[in-house]
């Protein structure tokens, strides 16, 4: 039977869209407090240096300067900006290696001092008056150089700059035997690109201590409660003495799941006793905040002539940059994804997480999986060519099915990989287009595809706790009070749709209260597409409780048992006789203004801790035209078939996919940090030197939402946003391979690198360039 929904499945406007469209939505940069000071951070011009002397007296004497802080002013407590050490079941791989302000610079952009002054000009002048004496140390920028004996040591405790060696615990079988059994073995080393997050709102923060000693932080964040606990530890304060407000967030993509400048801002506010705002410029944001990891990834695949994959092996050197942050969990995600997408009896993976003197990395959208599929899904196409099998058929031969373990080892409730591959292949006209001639002129046509399975949150590696509260107003509307970080993915709106559906009221009857740790209940932070599946579930539970109270009340009024009632379109009615009923508003008003001594504010609290993390799936098809004279790649079309379970809001899900496609087009073709090999300076720190796709760079896109509700999800919904950056990049790379027969292993696939590959004589090293 087809379930009919009133609110779920509708294209409701994003939560807060009117505020944004009229310019009234407040982001951190828009918030002004009386007497607020401007904070600025002095960063190291050297990639590697020890501070041997620092004179701040000149800056302190400058009129208008209210605080100058160096490492000498802040207790040298070590922390990690990443939140996972607080929620991982096995946090022993996490690493506390960062200080609020250090006496050693580990990358160009590392924090050396901070000032607070009455205005920007004074703060800037004060920075220039701080005299720092550096003992310049030799830097190391390449992860393969960093692990060699005698390389400069980024952190004293990490010999050979190896922060952590990870052996994938899910390794199974015997890979050596698996490769022996294969008819074809392919091994290739890729370098994935160090993508900048490039969220449009540059990093900003406000910190303010009240007269009662409580600290209030205004900052974008995906994890306010855990970030608050981190601040509490750094400043030796109880958590309850910190209030974290998350206003509108101008993009995050995982970056603000970690602490960024909040500790510095709080230190300045503490010292001055006044509110302090730090607002990074684009260049500062690019060169000082977390990026995607660059992996040197060696992947190896063995296949039989019939297409069966016999072994998969991955060896990673992970360039995490100057601090450890998210490197263990992103690397684990990579290895789980690489070894977990296909049925394969023999898999093994291991990684060295390495320090270098470059910009720190974090857990950025699609982390681990994006980099793993960049390797695995390109190896699949090369193996297909070697054994003379169609890449679609090779995938169909090896994909997992419902009941198989997913990439985290959890038994899958549903698996629609076969359906979405077949649907996409048919829609795109795979068989015909794959057989099509590549062209004889300069322009060569190609078509490629790739697939992925992702996750709906960090279970089972991390604890994931969600809470929501719903209270009815007198008029039959309800307030949904929930920690639902909305960075543009419309988590608030989709949660409101879930609540409205359960409560039988309209989307616009739900008023959302969010973004304040003083008001909303505890939450472990979102990321890895946890939001809708987990927070949405807590909202559903809260709504079910409120609905129970609502129907109980209505039952009393109507003289029937609550279980005889249903609610829809703001009206409660008898299931057996829908004409008999009462409006929601009448019940809530009567319950509120009750003269019989039975007052009740109808409400519900719901919690959720997952026991599943159902994977969203995607099959992506890319069509390209490659000019063999200029190596310019024109993406003609992307077809993206997505299974994210029940679609609560189609516009939201499509938007997540379309945005992910655009980010992946950049990731595949243009985006990478350009770091000067002598100075360590990030040269691509603005939108001219670091090109993110514009309207003129995006291909034609078609998004198909293949809706397969998953039993454990709220109304059957799974996650979506995290995974949309994963399969597009290899699909494009495979299309280029189909068009011109070359791979670029040093991503991104820029025209220079494609040209270099094309110029190699065919037959030698398969036209591969690295």
């Amino acid at each position, binding site marked *: 039977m087809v379930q009919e929904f009133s609110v779920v499945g509708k294209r409701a406007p994003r939560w807060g869209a009117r505020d944004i469209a009229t310019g009234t939505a407040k982001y951190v940069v828009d918030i002004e407090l009386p007497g607020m000071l401007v904070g600025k951070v002095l960063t190291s011009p050297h990639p590697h240096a020890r501070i041997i002397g620092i004179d701040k007296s000149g800056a302190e004497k400058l009129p208008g300067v209210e605080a100058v802080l160096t490492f000498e002013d802040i207790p040298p407590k070590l922390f990690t900006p990443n939140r996972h050490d607080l929620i991982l079941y096995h946090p022993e791989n996490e690493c506390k290696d960062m200080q609020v302000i250090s006496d050693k610079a580990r990358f160009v952009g590392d924090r050396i001092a901070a000032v607070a002054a009455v205005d920007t000009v004074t703060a800037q002048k004060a920075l220039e008056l701080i005299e720092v004496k550096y003992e310049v140390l030799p830097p190391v920028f390449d992860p393969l150089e960093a692990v060699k004996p005698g390389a400069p040591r980024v952190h004293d405790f990490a010999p050979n700059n190896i922060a952590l060696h990870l052996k994938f615990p899910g390794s199974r079988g015997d890979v050596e035997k698996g490769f022996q059994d294969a008819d074809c073995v392919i091994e290739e080393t890729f370098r994935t690109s160090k993508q900048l997050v490039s*969220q449009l709102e540059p990093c900003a923060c406000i910190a303010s201590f009240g007269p009662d000693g409580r600290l209030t932080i205004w900052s974008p964040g995906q994890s306010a409660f855990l970030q608050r606990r981190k601040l509490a530890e750094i400043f030796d304060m109880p958590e309850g003495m910190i209030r974290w407000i998350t206003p509108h967030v101008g993009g995050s993509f995982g970056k603000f799941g970690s602490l960024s400048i909040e500790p510095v801002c709080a230190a300045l506010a503490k010292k001055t006793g006044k509110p302090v705002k730090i607002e990074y410029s684009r260049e500062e944001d690019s060169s000082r905040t977390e990026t995607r990891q660059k992996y040197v990834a060696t992947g190896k695949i063995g296949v039989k002539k019939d297409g069966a994959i016999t072994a998969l092996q991955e060896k990673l050197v992970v360039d995490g940059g100057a601090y450890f942050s998210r490197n263990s969990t992103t690397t684990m995600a990579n290895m789980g994804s690489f070894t977990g997408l296909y049925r394969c009896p023999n898999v093994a993976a291991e990684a060295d997480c390495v320090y270098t003197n470059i910009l720190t990395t974090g857990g950025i959208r699609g982390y681990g999986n994006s980099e793993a599929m960049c390797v695995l899904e390109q190896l699949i196409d090369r193996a297909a060519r070697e054994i003379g099998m169609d890449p679609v058929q090779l995938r169909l031969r090896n994909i997992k099915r419902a009941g198989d373990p997913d990439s985290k080892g959890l038994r899958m409730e549903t698996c629609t990989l076969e359906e979405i591959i077949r649907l996409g292949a048919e829609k795109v006209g795979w068989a015909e287009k794959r057989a099509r001639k590549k062209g004889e002129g300069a322009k060569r046509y190609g078509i490629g595809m790739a697939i992925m399975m992702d996750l709906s949150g960090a279970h089972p590696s991390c604890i994931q706790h969600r809470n929501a509260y719903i209270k009815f107003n007198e008029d039959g509307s309800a307030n949904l009070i929930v920690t639902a970080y909305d960075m543009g993915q419309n988590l608030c709106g989709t949660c409101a749709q879930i609540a409205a559906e359960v409560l039988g009221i309209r989307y616009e009857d739900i008023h959302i209260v969010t973004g304040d740790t003083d008001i909303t209940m505890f939450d472990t932070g979102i990321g890895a597409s946890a939001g809708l599946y987990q927070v949405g579930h807590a909202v559903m539970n809260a709504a079910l409780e409120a609905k129970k109270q609502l129907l109980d009340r209505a039952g009393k009024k109507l003289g029937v048992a609550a279980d005889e009632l249903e609610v829809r379109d703001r009206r409660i009615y008898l299931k057996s006789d829908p004409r008999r009923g009462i409006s929601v508003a009448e019940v809530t008003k009567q319950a509120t203004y009750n003269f019989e001594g039975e007052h009740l504010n109808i409400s519900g609290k719901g919690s959720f801790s997952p026991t599943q993390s159902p994977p969203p799936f995607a099959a992506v098809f890319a069509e390209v035209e490659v000019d063999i004279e200029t190596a310019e790649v024109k993406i003609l079309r992307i077809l993206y078939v997505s299974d994210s379970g029940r679609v609560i809001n189609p516009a939201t899900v*499509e938007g997540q996919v379309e945005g992910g496609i655009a980010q992946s087009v950049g990731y595949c073709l243009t985006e990478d940090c350009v770091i000067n090999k002598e100075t360590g300076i990030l040269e691509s720190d603005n*939108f001219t030197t670091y090109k993110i796709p514009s309207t003129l760079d995006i291909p034609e896109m078609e998004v198909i939402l293949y809706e397969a509700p998953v039993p454990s999800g709220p109304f059957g919904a799974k996650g979506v946003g995290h995974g949309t950056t994963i399969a597009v990049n290899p699909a494009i790379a495979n299309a280029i391979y189909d068009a011109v027969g070359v791979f670029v292993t040093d991503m991104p696939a820029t025209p220079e690198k494609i040209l270099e590959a094309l110029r190699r004589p065919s037959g030698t090293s398969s036209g591969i360039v690295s």
Partner: protein
Amino acid sequence: MKKEIATFKINDRPYEVIVTSDMTLYELLRNLHLTGTKRSCGVGECGSCTVLVDGNPTLACSTLAIAVRDKEILTIEGLSRGAQLHPLQQAFVDGGAIQCGFCTPGMILMAKALLDENPTPTREEVKEGLGGNLCRCTGYVKIIDAVMASVEKMRRGDS
């Protein structure tokens, strides 16, 4: 720094303000608590701070305030009529064209300038016209859709 009193007309309202010679239009708007105009790159690469000056799209981060004195300045706050959204704003809201929203004010004003000049653009012309306004969230599809939807709506006259 040279300071002077200058008059501005922003969203049909006159302002008399002390400005320094190096103050940008973006800074002026911020001083007047008009925070709807966003700055993302600060050097004219991204279009986020686009406002209209005498109807022309203008990058507020790279324009000196003093250069636009006495001109008609329209920011995102001045686009709707009370609770009645401009058709472009309504189309962005209804069409899922807003994700994080940081590019939205500049994007909507750029689209307005585009439609003021060419009320019936093709999809390609809209793409071209918005080529200088960056968005990291949406992939632009729903933004272009929203502009095309408002073209249709305005053509029918039911704004």
